[in-house]
């Protein structure tokens, strides 16, 4: 019964928080309205979420968010430095292929987003079977180390969180 009423507890909880943050004021009425949204929206959108992602270790998720936020700041400075101080012919852009160990669509989506937001890399495409991801690197002379960093720093953690 409870499972039918709230098919995606995390989604419902997120919706309540986002609603409270949007109105920017905590009152009982707003909380009830947010809970109403938290129940109705997942019900209406349930057909679009056939498999629920299994989040094994939510605490690891917080660690991941903090690491990514820090990396975004570093990425901004590095990219700015490349744009400002490197001559055009010295910028060596390359394609990097990262074979994936994570298989769930959610984990791959988060990984692709992370790659785009972090140091000098943009995720461009997946292989048709979801087995590897194509990454464009703005400047690197050592593509293998970039690939290894993506695998150890982000993918390993996502594997712990999702599988």
């Amino acid at each position, binding site marked *: 019964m409870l499972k039918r009423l709230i098919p995606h507890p995390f989604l419902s909880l997120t919706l309540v928080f986002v609603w409270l943050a949007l109105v920017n004021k905590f009152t009982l009425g707003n909380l009830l309205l947010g809970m109403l949204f938290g129940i109705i929206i997942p019900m209406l959108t349930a057909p679009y979420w056939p498999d629920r992602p299994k989040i094994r270790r939510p605490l690891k998720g917080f660690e991941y968010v903090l690491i990514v936020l820090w990396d975004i700041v570093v*990425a901004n400075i590095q990219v700015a430095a490349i*744009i400002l101080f490197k001559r055009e012919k010295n910028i060596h852009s390359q394609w990097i*292929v990262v074979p994936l160990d994570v298989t769930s*669509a959610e984990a*791959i989506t988060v990984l692709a987003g992370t790659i785009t937001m972090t140091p000098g890399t943009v995720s461009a495409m997946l292989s048709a079977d979801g087995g590897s991801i194509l990454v464009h690197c703005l400047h690197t002379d050592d593509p293998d180390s970039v690939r290894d960093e993506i695998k150890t720093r982000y993918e390993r953690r996502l594997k712990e969180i999702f599988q």
Partner: protein
Amino acid sequence: MSTIVEALIALSLVVSGIFGLVGSYGLVKLTNTLQRLHAPTKATTLGVGGVLVASMIYFYAKTGYLSIHELLISVFLLLTAPITANFIAKTYMATSLKDSDLPDSQSSSGWSIYDEPPASRPGSGSVQ
């Protein structure tokens, strides 16, 4: 408002301005479309982030309440920026690059805009 708070607000505004400027300069300086993609997705995130931090400090100092709107804006920004970049990259590849321009996928199928997904895995694993 104390001088320290004003200095903090000014600092974040200046930082955000610098990053916004560098991002735009990157668009002019870099020539390859895929290289250009790097400038707006990264430099601008910190550019907008700086303004949001400044706004949060300002309203906290003025009213005493912590405004959460700015946090929401940055969350939405972080969620949407990679998707835009991915769409632009894909469109560029579909119109200007051939399969042979890209490295091998090291996987059982080729890259998704040139190759069909294997029939055995409907809807699982692949987000394309």
